[in-house]
């Protein structure tokens, strides 16, 4: 028995096996690294596909309302089960200068709707917002983010939209339409909700819902900062608030267990959330990226309660003990040791956080060793993902970037409001900048990942304040890959929370992470030169499944055994 970061005794995770695998693969990966370095062409083709005519209306004002610099989310999911990823984009709303009370954001105006775009077979998109009955985002709602999962296990992915205002749960009816079931489900919340995600915290097979909230703020109590610069105020100017946790009762309704679970014991200024079982105890834990303060790591106690233990675990502050301006986050294994690590995007001069999972519930800041010190110290990051874009067997980093302040260049000449996204390829745990293909700087915010054209190479969609979304289509290559769709039987149907290992790489099944956004639920693995794979799946139900000699370059559905 060992003490973990929360000072509790835990059994040692079986990480020794994973380390052996990683070592075995090392020599081959060194070779792959050389191959990756020789590729000088951009990783992505930058596209605005036909039909994707969305503009993110954040409505900047002279009042510098904080909400206007924060949207908006994007989700990649297959709402009609036709095998093609569709795109849902969250819109902000119309702000006036100053806002009148009661606040209305003109959301009945189509210009300010959220939008669902169905992907067609030719890669173009069709706006199906009205047909899908998603044209009513709520009159008092300014849109923020989106979470996606099949919360009722009916085989169709549902949508949860967060707002400054009330949140909305849209049930997917399975016929191309959605129904607003917020009132029945009891998940409207309130205040300023930001990122959200579905996960099964009590392993009962029903997906629960975590909603981050930023701060206690409204347009009536807004203010500007920076004196003559007149700019957005830092978060510390406004009171902190609590996050929300809803337990899925399994009957289409949710119970607010924020207090009961201990999630609401601490107030914060949360912007991002990601899930993984960091201490291998079989229960999914929660990492919350807080802005301008310490980060929160909620350890799942396995009894429907959580203990916040980021400080004791080493994942709360920078390596220098300074608070971070946490915005986006991802909770995945970047160094193929089998244990989920934490990345947090932050403001310039802070360096994006990279917390390596050392095992036994402890993390070590590794932002310098990973190369992020040189790559990110001058940048502001929002949406973020760890995906293997070059299929070399190592998860790479893609970050949506742009400063919070639209006039930051007046204040500090060395900083920039608009920035290109950061693409950094992972070379055995160290990241090196690569050409994303985006040459012009943008105000990036949301970022979602998925294989849009089902070619086995991961793509991404980036949202841009006041602009069109940018679709990053992976140019592909010759390496092998494997994409797994989990089909839970005793666990949730989507298998969220499962740990999947393929040829020594580990992914934690989740659609959450990034910032305001929801990713393709399919699990993608780059296989490098291997044309076969050994797959291990640890399901939230406790079932373990092993598949040997799976063929590379395929979409594989793995069904959970009915019995242990």
């Amino acid at each position, binding site marked *: 028995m060992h*003490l973990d*970061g929360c*000072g509790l005794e835990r059994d040692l995770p079986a990480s020794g096996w994973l380390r052996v695998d990683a070592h075995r693969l090392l020599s081959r990966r060194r070779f792959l690294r050389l191959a990756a370095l020789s590729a000088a062409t951009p990783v992505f083709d930058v596209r605005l596909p036909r039909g994707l005519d969305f503009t993110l209306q954040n409505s900047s004002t002279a009042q510098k309302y904080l909400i206007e610099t924060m949207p908006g989310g994007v989700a990649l999911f297959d709402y009609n089960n036709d095998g093609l990823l569709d795109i849902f984009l969250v819109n902000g709303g119309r702000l006036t200068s100053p806002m009148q009370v009661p606040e209305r954001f003109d959301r009945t105006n189509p210009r300010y709707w959220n939008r669902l775009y169905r992907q067609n077979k030719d890669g173009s998109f069709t706006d199906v917002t009205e047909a899908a009955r998603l044209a009513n985002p709520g009159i008092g709602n300014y849109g923020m983010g989106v979470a996606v999962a099949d919360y009722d296990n009916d085989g169709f992915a549902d949508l949860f939209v967060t707002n400054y205002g009330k949140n909305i749960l849209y049930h997917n009816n399975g016929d191309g339409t959605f129904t607003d079931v917020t009132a029945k489900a009891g998940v409207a919340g309130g205040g300023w909700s930001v990122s959200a995600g579905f996960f099964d915290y009590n392993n009962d097979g029903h997906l629960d819902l975590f909603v981050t909230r930023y701060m206690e703020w409204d347009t009536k109590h807004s203010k500007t900062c920076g004196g003559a610069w007149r700019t957005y105020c830092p978060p510390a100017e406004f009171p902190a608030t609590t996050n929300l946790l809803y337990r899925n009762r399994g009957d289409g309704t949710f119970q607010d267990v924020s207090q009961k679970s201990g999630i609401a014991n601490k107030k914060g200024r949360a912007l991002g959330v990601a899930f993984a079982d960091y201490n291998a105890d079989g229960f999914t834990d929660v990492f919350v990226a807080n802005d301008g303060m310490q980060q929160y790591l909620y350890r799942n106690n396995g009894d429907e309660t959580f203990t916040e233990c980021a*400080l*004791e675990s*080493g994942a709360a*502050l920078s*390596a*220098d*003990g*300074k608070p971070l301006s946490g915005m986006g986050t991802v909770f995945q294994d970047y160094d193929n040791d089998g244990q989920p690590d934490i990345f947090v995007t932050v403001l*310039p*001069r802070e360096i994006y956080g990279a917390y390596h999972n*050392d095992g036994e519930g*402890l993390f*070590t*800041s590794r932002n*310098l*060793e*990973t*190369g992020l*010190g*040189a790559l990110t*110290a*001058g940048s502001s990051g929002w949406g973020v993902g760890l995906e293997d874009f070059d299929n070399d067997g190592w998860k790479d980093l893609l970050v949506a970037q742009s400063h919070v302040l639209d006039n930051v260049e007046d204040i*500090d*000449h*060395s900083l920039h409001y608009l920035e290109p996204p950061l693409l950094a390829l992972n070379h055995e745990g*160290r990241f090196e900048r690569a050409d994303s293909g985006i040459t012009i700087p943008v105000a990036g915010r949301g970022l979602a990942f998925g294989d849009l054209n089902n070619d086995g190479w991961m793509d991404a969609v980036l949202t841009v304040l006041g602009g069109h979304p940018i679709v990053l289509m992976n140019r592909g290559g010759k390496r092998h890959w494997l994409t797994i769709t989990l089909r839970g039987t005793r666990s949730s149907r989507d298998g969220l929370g499962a740990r999947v290992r393929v040829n020594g790489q580990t992914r934690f099944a989740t659609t959450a992470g990034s910032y305001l956004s929801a990713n393709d639920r399919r699990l993608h693995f780059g296989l490098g030169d291997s044309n076969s794979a050994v797959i291990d799946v640890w399901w939230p139900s406790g079932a373990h499944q092993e598949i040997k000699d799976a063929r590379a370059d395929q979409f594989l559905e793995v069904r959970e055994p009915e019995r242990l």
Partner: protein
Amino acid sequence: MKFAILFFSLALQSVSPEAAQHMQTGVEAHKQGRLDLAIAEFRKATEAAPNLPEAFLDLGEVYAETGNYAAAIAPLKRALELNPELDGAHLQLGYALLAQGYAGEAIPHLERVRALEALGVAQIETGLYQEAIASLSAALVKRPNNPDLLYYLGRASGLLSKKTIETLIRAHPDSARVHEAMGENYFALRQMPQAEQEYREAWLQRPDIPGLQLELGLVYAGTEQWDKAEEAFRAEANRQPGNAEAAYRLGTALLQRGKAQEARAELQRADKLQPDMPETLYSLGKAALLAGEFALAEKSWTRVVALEKETSLAAQAHFGLAGLYRKQGKTAQAQHEMQEFQRLQSSTSSRPN
């Protein structure tokens, strides 16, 4: 006290009873804080005894006390006409003239009585920055850390620097030194592209000037261009192998780039060149931790804590030690360091670093 001395002085002189009475009444009124009455009485005393310098001095002093420096100047000047040796009148007149903006006129009076604080200010006002620095530095010896004196000394130094640079620019407008000075200015204004350009120009003209690559490196570090910063700091460190700052800066750039072993070596070199610099030791602890040299990390941070005690850097060192001990499974020590970190964090966050 001052007035009592005057009375002693008056007793030795042949002053008319009327003048003496007005003087006494004036002194009493002053003691009671009735300054208007005191002024009226001292004025009557000057009328009754127009050659009595003490009467004019007292009148001027009370005017000055009411803040009416304009009215104080004439009686104080008259007092000095009657008795040029009257130090009290020199002092008061110096202050009054300075307050009224006649700094040049005030200087001889303040010099005579060595009123160094006011003299320093007057010298700043008249552009005598070097002299002001001397006066204020001498005043600071008597009143160390006095905020006003420190402020004026800083101001005098800054203005002297500006004046010197202006002279330099006039005399050698396209010289390497001018470009270097311009680089410093742009750097202070955080106009980094311009700062880089000026430093580069300076370096092209005079690559022999020490410190140029260090300054260029700071520009790159300030804009998070750590590869270029490393290159510049390395050039400076090669050029000046005995320069501890160059070694320290190179070490931090290497650390930022994740080059743990190299950073550790360079920071150790900086520590050897200039021991017990807390910033060097703190970074050395980080580099050592990155390099897996736990004993060196512990030693460095423990030294920072000993040197700094209650500062934010000490808090950071405690935080580093907590992580190190946690990593080593030394739970009790980790908890102790974390508690110290939290204690210092709460105390240092309430005051500027």
